[in-house]
């Protein structure tokens, strides 16, 4: 396929792997931020092509994984109400809150529609003027502009029966939290290419400078990731800590300005709780005052957050990069995609699900994160 196969060329991949091995003189631990990158790494076995010293650990960039349980509870509560329709991306349906998941609500008769775009939710709103239609708006900066556009459009059209349950999160504050952690081992980042397509990469300069970590904006194809690793390792070996852009075919320094403008109009930055990680200041997006009337929490009551339930699941440590999925004693035994103990096993972008799907259970971890 054009514009894709050239980024999966085995010869070129070997070339990059050899180049990385040539410049690596010491062990380095890098984190890929985005769940899409994690998936590609595990699916194509990119970590197996790397020299022994270079370890990739998986970051918090799985939107389904970090959405707090109480938001899923709220979505279920809304879906269970007569006269409401809940629209959600398909990924979210399987994730359990504290009391079941959206599939369960659907089987009880809740009107839950899987949509591929927030604009589908608007269409459903127009077609059902007597129903309250709620869109479950989750994700990082990647999905935020389209979701903002849905609210913007709803206001322009005066769609009074439309609202959004918003649990948006932002990447840079999460990276800071990981770097501030007492046990942090991350020495360099592959930043999430699609997030930077929207936001650009200027906001990473202060992080690279403060924490002395190289940050390389990286794409999602195997060669993108290998080149991102190469650029990060080269910086580390040369003692540099800069922001570089591997994914220049999609990302500009300033990002996508119209997308940022619509986000700024519709959303405001607020503190957010991340599932498995905890509360992070200024790490999320909520609806701005001008759009408060489209907030499902105004219409159906606020999301109430209690303490996270204690389980043997280590997904919080996995999301912070402190552990790899096979390090968990429950991995593949008491925790499987059919009976997940934690969100990283549920979502298709979760690191545990990726390991389970592409590595299976019997194989020992290829490179323990020790």
């Amino acid at each position, binding site marked *: 396929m054009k514009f894709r196969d050239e980024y999966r060329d085995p010869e070129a991949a070997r070339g990059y792997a050899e180049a990385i091995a040539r410049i690596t003189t010491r062990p380095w631990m890098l984190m890929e931020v985005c769940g899409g990158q994690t998936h590609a790494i595990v699916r194509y*076995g990119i970590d197996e092509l790397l020299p022994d010293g270079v370890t990739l650990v998986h970051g918090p960039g799985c939107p389904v994984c970090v959405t707090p349980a109480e938001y899923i509870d709220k979505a279920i509560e809304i879906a269970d109400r007569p006269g409401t329709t809940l629209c959600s991306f398909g990924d979210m349906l399987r994730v359990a809150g504290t009391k079941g998941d959206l599939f369960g609500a659907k089987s009880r008769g809740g009107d839950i529609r899987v949509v591929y775009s927030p604009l589908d939710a608007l269409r459903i709103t127009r077609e059902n003027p007597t129903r309250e239609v709620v869109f479950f708006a989750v994700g990082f900066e990647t999905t935020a502009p389209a979701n903002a556009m849905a609210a913007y459009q709803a206001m322009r059209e005066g769609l009074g029966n439309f609202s959004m349950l918003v649990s948006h999160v932002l990447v840079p504050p999460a990276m800071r939290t990981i770097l501030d952690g007492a046990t942090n081992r991350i020495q360099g980042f592959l930043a999430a290419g699609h997030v930077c397509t929207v936001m650009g990469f200027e906001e990473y300069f202060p992080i690279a400078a403060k924490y002395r970590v190289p940050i390389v904006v990286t794409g999602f194809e195997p060669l993108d990731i290998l080149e991102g690793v190469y650029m990060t390792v080269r910086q580390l070996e040369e003692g540099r800590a800069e922001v570089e852009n591997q994914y220049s075919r999609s990302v500009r320094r300033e990002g996508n300005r119209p997308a940022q403008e619509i986000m700024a109009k519709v959303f405001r930055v607020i503190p957010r709780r991340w599932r498995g990680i905890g509360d992070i200041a200024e790490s999320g997006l909520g609806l701005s005052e001008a759009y408060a009337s489209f907030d499902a929490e105004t219409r159906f009551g606020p999301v109430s957050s209690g303490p996270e339930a204690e389980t043997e699941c280590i997904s919080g440590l996995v999301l912070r990069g402190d552990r790899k999925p096979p390090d968990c004693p429950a991995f593949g035994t008491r925790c499987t995609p059919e009976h997940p103990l934690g969100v990283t096993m549920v979502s298709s972008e979760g690191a545990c699900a990726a390991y389970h*799907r*592409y590595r299976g259970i019997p194989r020992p971890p290829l490179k323990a994160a020790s």
Partner: protein
Amino acid sequence: MSKPDFSPACPAPAGDGGTVQLAHGGGGRAMERLLDTVIRPAFDNAQLARRHDGAVLDLNGPIAFTTDSYVVKPLFFPGGDIGSLAVNGTVNDIAMCGARATHLSVGLILEEGLPLDDLRRVVASMRKAADAVGVQLVTGDTKVVDHGKADGLFINTAGLGPVVARSPIGPAEVRNGDAIIVSGDIGRHGIAVMAAREGFGFETVIESDCAALGDPALALVEAGIAVHCLRDMTRGGLASAAVEIAETAGVAMALDEAAIPVREDVRAACEVLGLDPLHVANEGRFVAFVAAGDAKRAIEILRGFAVSAGAAQIGAVTESPAGQVASRGVLGVSRVVDMLSGEQLPRIC
């Protein structure tokens, strides 16, 4: 003076009103009329003409027997419809037993309000699919359920036919070293139905691969190919078929991702939706496990049929670890192929 435009017409309602009514399932006149005007003319054959409670068949020797229910939304999609699916699906299940389907039963569950024209299209399509492979629809049943209780129309078909294969065919016969052959490119049906249902508007219209597989499958058997197992790759796709067989047979499988045929448009749609073509449903493709020495000849035979012209070897059966299917990716690193854990869910971003 021009004549007034006047045509005499009976003011009483036409009865059927163009849609299925609950009365059509009531066992009375309305039901008889539906059967006489829509169902029986479409399926017309000597068995049905007897208007008996069941078909009486004269069968000898080992018989393969199967049943399947069909629920698909939308009822009509590029490359097929629920009617052709309901005939081909059951015919294919029989073919995978090394047998040739001869007779089918048809159970129709109609939703109140289904346009009669849709029903006519579906039964005509069933007849056409049945005629194409020489099977007769010899007994049936029709029920009507309240509006909202079915997606327009559900179909159950059961089928049977004499076994052609002389040696057993099934997962337990698969052995170490067997060649794994698919009958053509994978993933088309699932993407076609998903695109039609969700209205994705891809640049090209992807057509379902819905087709009968009896001819190519039985040609292998009749040519004396050592066929150990046949499986149509329906729900769950190639991955589910392979994993299920590996687990039952207690063998491992090594697939070569580059050798698995997937059309460019299907591949692109899977990329966009975050789906793995190995998990996507097919309705006109099967995977065959044959003795390694027969692989080349088997592929040549399959390529002689339009429906399996794209046949290719995609891997081989290996000894261990039992139950594990591995696939060597484009970068040369192997990954584990697993069944879908639940429904196929497109990802967020």
